Each structure stands twice: as C-alpha cells, then as structure tokens.
C-alpha cells in the first residue's frame, strides 16, 4: 500500500488547514451542491459569472482533509475559466486521481496523484469538482445566501 505522505502531501495539508475561497459568495449567480452519503461529506459551490467566465468562486461544506483541500484548490484552478475550460481541467484532475499520473506542467493539482492508491477516497477528491461543473451548467439567476 502506498505511503500516507503520498496521500497527504504538504499542498493538501495546507489547503485543508487554510482553505482558499471558503464561505458563501455575496451576489453569487449560480450554486450547486453535492454530497457523499456514505461518509456525510457535503460541498456547495457558489459562482459569480462574468459573461461566460467564472468571475468569483467559493465553496462551503464539511468533509475529510482530501475533500476540503480538493475544494479549496479547485476554486483556485477554476477562477476565470469557462465551462469548456473547467470541464477539461476536471478531466485532467480525474485522470490524476484515478491513475496517479502527474501532469507534465508543474501544478498544485499533482499533489492529488496519491489519491489513486486509495480508491475509497477518489469520491472525496472529486465531490467539489462535480458541484462546480453542475453550477456552471445552470443558467444565471440571483442566489439567496
């Protein structure tokens, strides 16, 4: 079995301890949630769109270090992206967490390569990404929060 320091890399621990873009987003125009009923993890992603691009993004929720760090990092990755760009980032992320292959370009998401050795945790890593893509697929409308 893979070593735990592969799973809990410094990047992950850092994002878990000091999550970026955490909390509700005032003036969000899109929102979507996801949960992982087997473990009780949940995640809500808020978007404020600027045209086709994500102007601002935030997340809320509770869960394990992997899910929280992944959500935090996801928000930094998707800032300024369109739906098509976000989908291709998500594809790359899914590839990293399921195969353990690290991307050629240096990127913080590579820290999640260790997840592939812990199949039960892949869902933790992808939860917030699914919510973000769901939100991107919705029409703009004022979100109460």
């Amino acid at each position, binding site marked *: 079995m893979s070593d735990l320091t592969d799973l809990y890399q410094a990047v992950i621990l850092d994002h878990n301890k000091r999550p970026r873009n955490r909390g509700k987003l005032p003036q969000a125009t899109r929102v979507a949630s996801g949960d992982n009923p*087997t473990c*009780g993890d949940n995640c809500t992603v808020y978007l404020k769109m600027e045209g086709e691009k994500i102007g601002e993004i935030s997340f809320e929720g509770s869960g*394990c270090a992997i899910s929280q760090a992944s959500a935090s990092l996801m928000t930094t990755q998707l800032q300024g992206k369109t739906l098509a760009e976000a989908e291709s980032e998500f594809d790359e992320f899914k590839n990293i967490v399921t195969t353990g292959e690290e991307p050629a370009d240096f990127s913080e998401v590579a820290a999640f390569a260790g997840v592939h050795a812990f199949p039960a945790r892949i869902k933790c890593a992808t939860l917030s990404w699914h919510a973000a893509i769901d939100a991107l697929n919705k029409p703009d409308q004022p979100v109460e929060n």
Partner: protein
Amino acid sequence: MSSDFSNLRVDFPVLDQHVGGHPLVYLDNAATTHKPRAVIDAVARFYERDNSNVHRGLHALSMRATDGYEAARARTARFINAADSAEIVFTSGTTASVNLVAQGWARDNLKSGDVVLCTEMEHHSNMVPWQIVCQQTGATLKYIPVLGEDAEGGLDMEALDQLLTEQVKLVAFTHISNTLGTINPAAEICAKARAVGALTMVDGAQSAGHEDVDVQAMGCDFYAFSGHKMAAPTGIGVLYGRRELLDHMSPWQGGGGMISVVRYDASEWKPAPERFEAGTPNVADAVGMHAAMDYLDSVGRPKIGQHEAELAALAYDRLSELPGIRLLGPRSGEPRAGLVSFAFADVHAHDVVTFADQDGVALRGGHHCNQPLMHKLGLPSTTRASFYLYNTPEDVDALVTSMRRILNFFGAG
C-alpha cells in the same frame, strides 16, 4: 482484564495477517465479526458432504440437509430461549427480519391514527422500514429522544412514558446501540409497551452474540439479529416472533416452501416459520450459524460481553486524554457495550480511518447508519472502534498510539 481470551485468537484464521506491514488490529466488529475455524469448517463440511435442497427431498443428502437446517433452528431457539422452534424464522439478517415484521404484521395491523414508536438512536434498518409502512398505512412514526449533548444520557424514559399512549401499536428499539454503545433497558421498555397494549420489536444485532439473551424474560414480541455480527456467516439471520403473532401474520414473500395448497387462483400458507421462508433457504449458513452459537456458548457469552465492555471502557478512558476529542455515549464508569465512537475537532473521521489502516488498525468512520442522530449531535461523522472476544488490551494500545500519530500529523496533537 477479568478474562484472558488471547489464546482464542488462533481460532480465527483471518486475524493472522499483516496490514500495511503491521499485525492486523481488527476493531470493526460492530460492522461484522470474524469467523472461527469451527464455523468455516461447518460450512465447508456441509458443502462437501451434505449439500442438497431441503424439505421436498426424499434422498439421503436432502434429509441430512433438512436435519441440519432444522437442528440450526432448534439451536437458535435455545440460543435466545424461545419457547418453541416454530418461533424462529431464518432470514438474511436483521434488516430482512425488521422488514418482514413491517410488511407481514404492521402493514395489516396499522391504520391512520396509530403510532409506531422508534428511538433517535435507531439504526436505519430499524427506522426506514417503519417509515415505509407508516406511509403505506397512514400511521405516525414518533421517536423516543436520546438525552445529553454527547448522547450520554441514553433514552429519555420519561419521554417514553409520555409518548406511550393507547395509540401506540408498536415500539421498535435497539437493544444495544451500534453508534453509542448504549445498552437500553429492554425488559423495562417491553413491560411499559405491553401495559398500553403495544407490541415490541427489539433489534438485537449488537446484543445476540454478546450476552445471554432470553426473549421470554425480556418480554419482547419480536427480536431480530444477524449471524455475521456474532461469528457466523453473512447472509443468515433470525426473526424471533411470538407464535400467536407469527401464526396470524401474512406472508412477506410468496413462492415455494411457504405454501400448503396452491391453486391457479389462490393458495394457502403453511404455518410459521415456513410461511416466511419462501424459496430455497440459506441452509449452509444456517448450519454455520449453529456452529457459531456452539462456539460462543462454549466460551460463554456473559464472559465475552464483559471482556468487550472492559476493553471499550479502557479505550474510552485512554482516548479521553487526547486533545480535541469528543466521545459519544455513556460516560466513563457508566455501563457501556463493547464499542466506542468519537470525533476529533480538527480531523475528519475519514482521515482518521485511512491513517489507522496504515497502522494495521481497522476502524469505521461515517454515520454508522444513523444519519439523523449524527445530525442531532451536530457531527458529520464519527470514528468507531468496536471489540469482540478476540481483541486484547494491546489492541487498545495500538488504537491510541495510532490516534496520537494522526493528531500529530495534522498538527492537532
């Protein structure tokens, strides 16, 4: 420790292995227990020598299979002190047993205005079947509250007295909570229910293999348990029901084995227990469960229960020294069954369980099939360590050491 069972560890082949380079420390017994060699052999022997279908056969193997199956039923009756073997229905487990009562008894006997009482600490399998049948019949489901911010106070027995009106037709409660380790006063609850004419359904999943159960002394109407949580195979379980009740209940499923006469337009049912065992039953695992009952009683269930309770009390006290820990269920010194659930302020149960696994310590993290209770306690999930006869004080050491390592890693220790 009052009993040293460490010599029994060799009876359980699965314990002899390493996980993550460490000897396996299996503390997930509330989810399922391991099987002693005697049980594994009994199942293998059945398939090697006696395998056949039951009831309708006239050849030697079929008669042996039938004898083995019915001997398991008689053994089960003795195991819980049922008055009669006919009160023992074999099912696939606790969940199936509860659903059988919900659909076989409650569906015919509940109507709008009636109340089913359940508890806030119920496993989903003794909660959701009542939600379903209440929707079907228009009856109302109410809950006996659990007291204390960490659920340390057990069931609110005063609230029970308030809730127990004549509208209550059934009280469904767990004997031992799989999430809290609380031991409920089963006989007292059954007596109170009987006083208002309500039936009782006791979930014995966590008690049957851990203490001497006497359904007549308890005074329950139904008692359900699973083989796999008491050293027997998966896929076999029991519904005990008082004979008068079973004989008047509708079949749950139709099929072979449960009918006395079949015409094209309608059929007649066999009496209990066959009425509730449509189709080919799980003969091999019933035989395996028979062996498990013999094994447990040769060790002595009261001794097993005491051993686990001592380990859980030790774990509770040792864990309570850790920073930022919140322990659920009875406080130190109060009666507690053989398990401990806890949560850390800064480390999620999933991270805890993944870490512990690297140390060879098998735990469970999550809501333990009790989402509403977790919600009430304001916890997304907890980590649970649950003990059985083969666990030792050294296993508690391994648990605590692993927890300290996790807290250090996450900078929370």
